C-alpha cells in the first residue's frame, strides 16, 4: 500500500525537463512582466520633454534622495539571497532575520516613494498636471505596487517561518519570492537610470 502510494507520488513530480514547474511558470510570468514594464518605460521615454507646462523633471527630481532609496532596494536583494540561504540550511533564526531585513528595506523604499510623491505633489506635479506627471506616476506607481505586493508576500513567508512552517523542503517558496524580488529590483535600476539619471 505504502509502496503504491510512493509510486503514484513519484510520477506526480515527474517533469520532462527536470525543472520545477513553479519556477518555470514564474520565469514565464517574469518574461511577460518585462513587456509590461517595457511598454510603460517606452511611453515615459516617448513623452520625455514633451510636456507643455511645468513642472519639468529638472524642477522636481531629487537625485541624491532617490539614490539612497535605490541603494536601499539594492541591499534588500542581497538580504534576500541570505534569507534564501538561511531557509535552505534550515536555520530558522537566520532566515527570519534576513527575511525581516528584506521586509524592512522594502518598506523603507516604499516610504521614500510616498515621501517623494507627496513632495512632488506639493511642488505642483499632479497626475493630471502634464505628460510628465501622468507618465511618471503611472510608471513608478506600478513599480511601487509591485514592491508593495512583494512586501506582503515576504511578510507571509516571515510569519510561516516564525511558526516553523518553512523547513528547507519549502525553500522553493522563498526562492520564487526571491526571483520576483530581484526582478522588481532590476526594473527599478532601469527606471532609475532612464528616468532620473538621464534627463
Amino acid at each position, binding site marked *: 500500500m505504502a509502496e*503504491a*502510494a510512493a*509510486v*503514484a*507520488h513519484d*510520477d*506526480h513530480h*515527474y*517533469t*520532462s*525537463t527536470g*525543472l520545477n*514547474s513553479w519556477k*518555470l*511558470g514564474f520565469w*514565464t*510570468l517574469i*518574461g*511577460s*512582466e518585462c*513587456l*509590461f514594464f517595457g*511598454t*510603460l518605460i517606452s*511611453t515615459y521615454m*516617448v*513623452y520625455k520633454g*514633451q*510636456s*507643455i*507646462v511645468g513642472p519639468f523633471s529638472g524642477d522636481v527630481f531629487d537625485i541624491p534622495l532617490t539614490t539612497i532609496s535605490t541603494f536601499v532596494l539594492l541591499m534588500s536583494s542581497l538580504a534576500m539571497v541570505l534569507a534564501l540561504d538561511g531557509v535552505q540550511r534550515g536555520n530558522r533564526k537566520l532566515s527570519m532575520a534576513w527575511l525581516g531585513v528584506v521586509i524592512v528595506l522594502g518598506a523603507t523604499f516604499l516610504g521614500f516613494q510616498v515621501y517623494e510623491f507627496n513632495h512632488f505633489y506639493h511642488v505642483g506635479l499632479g*497626475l*493630471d498636471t*502634464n*505628460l510628465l*506627471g*501622468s*507618465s511618471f*506616476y*503611472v510608471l513608478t506607481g*506600478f513599480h511601487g505596487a509591485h514592491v508593495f505586493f512583494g512586501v506582503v508576500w515576504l511578510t*507571509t513567508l516571515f510569519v510561516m517561518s516564525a511558526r516553523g512552517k518553512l523547513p528547507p523542503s519549502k525553500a522553493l517558496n522563498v526562492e520564487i519570492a526571491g526571483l520576483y524580488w530581484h526582478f522588481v529590483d532590476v526594473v527599478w535600476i532601469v527606471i532609475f537610470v532612464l528616468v532620473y539619471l538621464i534627463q
Partner: protein
Amino acid sequence: MSVATESAATTHDAHHGEPTGLWSWITTVDHKRIGIMYFLTSIFFLLVGGLEALLIRIQLFKPENDFISAELYNQLFTMHGTTMIFLVAMPMAVAFFNYVVPLQIGARDVAFPRLNALSYWIYLFGGLYLNASWFVGQAPNTSWVGYANLTSTQFSPGLNVDFWVLGLSILGVSSIMGGVNFITTIINLRAPGMKLMRMPLFTWMTFVTSFLLITALPVIAVALIMLAFDRFFSANFFNVAAGADPVLWQHLFWIFGHPEVYILVLPAFGVISDVIPAFSRKPLFGYPVVVYAGVLIGFIGWGVWSHHMFTSGMGPIADSFFVATTMIIAIPTGVKIFNWMATMWGGAIRFTTAMNFAVGLVALFTVGGLSGVMHASAPVDLQQHDSYFVVAHFHYVIVGGILLGMFSGLYYWFPKVTGRYLSEKAGAWHFWTTMIGFNLTFFPMHFSGMFGMPRRTWTYQSELGVQLYNQMSTVGGFILGISTLIMLYNVLKSAKSGAPAGSNAWGAPSLEWSIPSPPHHYNFPALPEVRSREPMWHDDERAAIEAVTLAHPAKEPEMPGPSFWPIVVASGVTATWALVMTGVWWVPLIGLAYTTFGVFMWAFEDPFKHLESSH
C-alpha cells in the same frame, strides 16, 4: 481484514472517481472539464455576437434604412467585433488547448490546474461584465480598436468606453495566465520520449500562441491602463491639449493587434495540421518545415504592426519598411499551405466533416490572404482603408480561417470528449450552409468596398449602387446564422445519442487517441513512452502504449481536488475592476480586499487534502 480493505476501497473510489453534479463542475480543476466549459461559453458568445451581426445586416439591407439608430449601430459593430475576437475566437481556441494539449503530450493535467480554473472564471465574468453594458443602454461604441481621442472623456462622456476599457483588461489577465500555464505545461509535462519535435502540430501551435499571448497582451494592458487613468483620474496620456500624441495608442494597439491575428489563426492552423494527416492517412508532409514556419510567423508577427497605420502619416520610409515585412510574412504562410496540400497528395483521403472544414479553411484563408497582400501595399491600402473591402478581407481570414478551423477541431475531437460521433449528415448540412452563407455574405463586400462603401457607417445612399451587394450579404448572414443553429443541434443531439466511438475514433496517429473516450479524469493510468511522431500508426509502438494507457491502474493516480477559491478570486478581480467605475478611488479597494482574502485562502489550501482520509 477483508472487510477493512473493502471499505477502504469504497472510500477510495468515492474520493478518486469522477465526481458528478453542478457543484463538481463549478469547482472543477480538471483541464478536460474546463475545456468543455470554455467551449460552451464561447458558443454562447458566438450566438450573442452573431445576433449583433445580423442586426447590423438588417440595417444595411437597404439604403437610408432607419431600422436602428446611428448610435445603436456604433454599439452593435463595436460589441460584435469585441465579442467575436475576445469572447469567441480566442476562448474557443483555449477550449481546445485545454482539452487536447495535455492528452496529446501524455500529461495528467496542465501544470497549474487551479490557475486554469481561474483563467476560465475570469473570462466568463469579464465577458458578462462587458455585456452588462447592454442592460444599462451604454454598450461600447468606439469600435474594437478604440482609437485615441474618440475614447477620451471629452468625446465619450458616458459609461460606454468605461465598460470597454475595464472589460478588456479583465480578459487580458485571463489570457496571460493561460499563456503562462500552457508554456509551462508543454515544456514540462511531456510524457517520456515526447521530444519537442515529436509533438503534434496542434500542441506546437498552442506553444507558439502562448508565447504571443504573454508578450502581446501586456502591451495592450498598458495601453488600456493608460486610457483608464486618462478617463478616471484625468491623466494626459492621450490628451492632445497637453502635448500627447494620439498615434501612441495606435502603435500600442497594433503592436498587440497584429500578433493577435496570429494568436487567433495559429491554433486553427494547428488543428488542421492534425486533421489533414489523420484523414489523408499520411504523416504531415515536411513536419519540421511546418513547425518552423509556425514559429517564424510568431516572430515576424511582431514586426509588421504598422501596416495597420499606413493612413496615420508615418512617412514613406516607415511605410516601406512595413510593406516589406508584411509581404515577407506571406512566405511561411504559403509554405504551410503547400505542406497541407502535399500531405493530401496521394493520400487515402476521407472527406469527413472535420476534413471538409479543414479543406474549406485552406481555400477561404487563401482568398483572405490574397486580399491581405493587396492592401499590405501602402498605396493600395490608402484606397481601400476603412472600406468594406477590408471587412471582406478580415472576415475571410477570421471566419474563413479561424472559425472553420475550430469547427474542424470540433468534429475531430468530439468523439474523444463524449465517446460519440457527431452526426455526419447534420455535419454536411452545417458545412455546406456555412460555405454558401459565408461566401454570399463576404464575397460581395469586396465589391461594395471597391465601389466606395465605408465601413462603420450606419447607412448608405442609393446612388452608391451597392444595394444589391448589401442584400446578398444580408441573406448570406442569415444563412450563416442558420448554419450555426444546425451545429448547435448536432452537438446537443449527438452528445446524447450519437453513434458510439471507440478510443481511436478516426484511426488517427497521436497520443490522445490511445486512451478511452471519454478519458478518465486522470487521463493516463501510467505515463506512456513515446518513440515516434505518429505513435498510434506504428503497430508495435501502439501496442506498447495501449498496454499502458488502457490498463486499469492498481491504484488510481492522485489528482488535485476541487476548489472554489478560483471563483472567489475571479469574482474579486471582476468586482474590483467594475468598482473603478464609481470614480471614487477607495471603493475598488473593497474588491481588492476580497480578492486578497481569496488569494490567501487559495495559497494555503492544499490541493491534495481531499486525499488525506484515504491514506
